[in-house]
C-alpha cells in the first residue's frame, strides 16, 4: 500500500514536470506581465505623485488647501455620502426582492439594475439635463417652484446615484440567493420579528458581500466624471467635484496643482483597493466556511 502511494506521488510530480514550461519561457512570461503592469499602471500612478510633489511639498499642500479644491473635495464627499446610503437601501430592497421572492418582471428588474453599466455616463448626465434642465420636461415646473437640480448639487448627487447604483445590488444578490431563505424561516419560527430577523440573521449573513459592494460603490461615486460633468455646469467652488476640478486645472495648464488634486483621488482609490482586498479575503473565507450542501458526517 505504502509502495503504491509512493509511486503514485512520484508519477504525479513527474507529470507536473512535463507540464511546466522551460525556465526561459517562464521568466519571459513573468517579465512581460510585470513590465506591462509597470508601464501602464505603476508608472502613471507614480507620475501622479511625483508631479504632485515636483514643486515641493509646500506647493502641494497649497494646491490642496486652495478653497476651490477644498470645495470640490467637500462636494465629492457629500455626493458619495448621499449616493452610497441611497444605493445601499435600494440594493438591499432589490436584493431581497430578487433573491427571496418570485414575481412577474423579476428578470426585467435584474436586467434594469445593470443599465448604468451598459449606458455611457455621458448619456446618463444628458438624461438628467433633459428631464430637469430649463428646457427639460420638468424644467418649467421646477423653475416655477425655484428648485434647481441641474447645474447644482442635487443634479450631481442624482447623477452619482445613477452611475453607482448597480454595485451594491449586484454584490448582494448572489450572496442572498446562495443563502436562501431557510435561516429567515428558522428565525421566524423561533419567535423573531421582522426587524430582529433582518438585523440578527439576514444582514450578518451578507455583511461581507454588502461591505464589498459599498466599497466599489464608494470608489465609483467619488471617481465619476462623465455624468457629473454634464449636469455640473462646472461652477468653481460650487458645483465642481474633484475629478472635474482636476480637468479644469489641467486645461488651465496648472499641471502641478492638477496632479496634486489627482493624488488625492488616487490616494482615495488606493485606500479603497486595500480595504477591498481585505474584505475579499474575508468574503472568500466565509463562503468557504459555509458550504451550501452539508458534507456527510
Amino acid at each position, binding site marked *: 500500500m505504502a509502495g503504491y502511494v509512493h509511486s503514485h506521488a512520484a508519477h504525479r510530480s513527474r507529470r507536473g514536470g512535463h507540464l511546466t514550461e522551460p525556465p526561459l519561457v517562464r521568466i519571459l512570461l513573468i517579465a512581460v506581465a510585470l513590465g506591462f503592469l509597470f508601464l501602464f499602471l505603476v508608472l502613471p500612478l507614480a507620475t501622479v505623485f511625483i508631479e504632485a510633489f515636483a514643486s515641493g511639498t509646500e506647493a502641494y499642500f497649497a494646491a490642496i488647501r486652495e478653497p476651490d479644491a477644498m470645495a470640490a473635495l467637500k462636494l465629492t464627499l457629500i455626493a458619495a455620502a448621499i449616493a452610497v446610503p441611497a444605493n445601499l437601501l435600494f440594493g438591499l430592497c432589490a436584493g431581497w426582492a430578487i433573491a427571496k421572492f418570485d414575481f412577474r418582471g423579476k428578470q426585467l428588474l435584474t436586467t434594469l439594475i445593470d443599465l448604468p453599466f451598459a449606458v455611457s455616463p455621458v448619456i446618463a448626465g444628458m438624461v438628467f439635463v433633459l428631464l430637469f434642465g430649463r428646457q427639460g420636461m420638468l424644467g418649467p415646473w421646477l423653475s416655477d417652484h425655484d428648485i434647481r437640480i441641474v447645474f447644482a448639487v442635487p443634479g450631481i448627487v442624482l447623477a452619482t446615484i445613477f452611475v453607482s447604483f448597480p454595485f451594491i445590488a449586484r454584490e448582494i444578490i448572489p450572496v442572498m440567493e446562495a443563502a436562501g431563505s431557510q*435561516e429567515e424561516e428558522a*428565525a421566524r*419560527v*423561533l419567535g423573531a420579528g421582522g426587524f430582529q430577523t433582518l438585523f440578527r440573521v439576514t444582514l*450578518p*449573513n451578507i455583511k461581507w458581500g454588502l461591505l464589498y459592494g459599498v466599497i466599489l460603490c464608494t470608489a465609483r461615486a467619488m471617481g465619476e466624471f462623465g455624468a457629473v460633468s454634464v449636469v455640473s455646469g462646472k461652477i468653481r467652488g460650487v458645483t465642481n467635484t474633484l475629478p472635474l476640478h482636476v480637468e479644469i486645472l489641467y486645461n488651465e495648464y496648472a499641471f502641478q496643482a492638477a496632479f496634486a488634486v489627482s493624488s488625492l483621488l488616487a490616494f482615495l482609490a488606493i485606500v479603497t483597493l486595500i480595504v477591498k482586498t481585505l474584505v475579499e479575503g474575508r468574503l472568500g473565507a466565509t463562503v468557504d466556511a459555509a458550504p451550501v450542501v452539508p458534507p456527510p*458526517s
Partner: protein
Amino acid sequence: MSIQVSHLTKRYGGFVALNDVSFTVQQGELLALLGPSGSGKTTLLRIIAGLERADAGSVLFDGDDAVRRDPKDRGVGFVFQHYALFRHMTVFENVAFGLRVRPRAQRPAEADIRRRVNDLLALVQLDYLGDRYPSQLSGGQRQRVALARALAVEPKVLLLDEPFGALDAKVRQELRRWLRRLHAEIHLTSVFVTHDQEEALELANRVVVMNEGRIEQDGTPEDVVEHPATPFVVNFLGQVNIFHGRVQDGQALFGPMAVAFPEHPHTEARTAAGYSRPHELAVSRTDEGGGLWAIVTDVRVSGAIVKMEVTDDQRQPMQVELGREQYEQIRAIIGEKVYVKPRKVRVFMEDPSP
C-alpha cells in the same frame, strides 16, 4: 398539545399540493407523515408551522384556530431538512437565539439563558461544542444542534422535516434511536416528515401515508403494514409482487392461482390485482394447489435470508424471500422448477373502467 387538521387544500398554480387533508395528532404522539416526494407532506408540515398558508381548511391547536397566528406565536419547534442553522453564530448562540429574541418582559436573564442552553446541549450530547460554528460540525451534530435550538423555546409541538434525510445510514440509525428515547422522555407532540418507510415504521406511534396531496391511510405502523388500505400503501411500504387477474363469485383468480375473496360474491367479474410481499410467498418442490410453477432465475444469500427471483411461464419475474433454514430444505438452484404459493395475498379491485 393536540393538532387538528381539517380539510386543508393548497394549490401552487395548477398543481394541487394538498387536496382536502384531515387528520388529528393526539397530545404526546409521535406521528410520521410518509410519502414520496411531491406527495404534499412537507407542504402540510409547513402549513402547520405557519410558514405556508393554506388555500382552504383549518389547523387547530388544542381546539384554537392556529391559522390566524403568526409562526412566531404558534409555539412550534421546527427542524429543517438542511438544518438552517445560523451560520454566523456559534452553536451556543444558535440554541440561545429563540430566547434572546423574546420581548424584554419575557426574556430570561442572561444566567438563565446560559443554564438553559447548556442543559439543552447536554441533552443532545454536544455540550463540548458550544463555541464551534455550524460549518465545523458533522451532519449528525448539526442535526442535533437544530433539534436543541427548536427545543429551546419550549415548543408545544415539534415538527421535523425529513430530519435524517441528509445523513448517512449509520448516523441515521443512531439518531433515530436517540430521537425515540428523547420522545419517550419528554413526550412532546411531534410530527415528522419522511419518505423512508422504515424510518416511519420504526419511529412513529402513528403513520399517515400520503400520495398526490391526499391521505391514503392513517393508522398505527402495524395497521399500515398488515392492513394496507390501498394498493399505493402496499406498493410504497416495500417490495411487493403484483398479480393481475379478476374477482368473481367470492374468489380472486390470478392465472392458475385462486384465493378466497368474500368481499365480491357477485357473478359479475371485475379486474383486480393481488399483492404479496417477497416473504409471503412459499416455495416448494411439489404442487400443493393454489399456486403456480416457476423457474428459478437468481438466488442470493444475504445473511439470514435468501433472496430468490423466479419467473412464471408468462415471463413475469417474482421476488421471493426465504429464511435460511427454509431454503436449506428445498435447495433450488438457478434453472430449476419450483412451486410458488402465496401464503398471503391482499386483493384490491380495480375501478371499473369508465
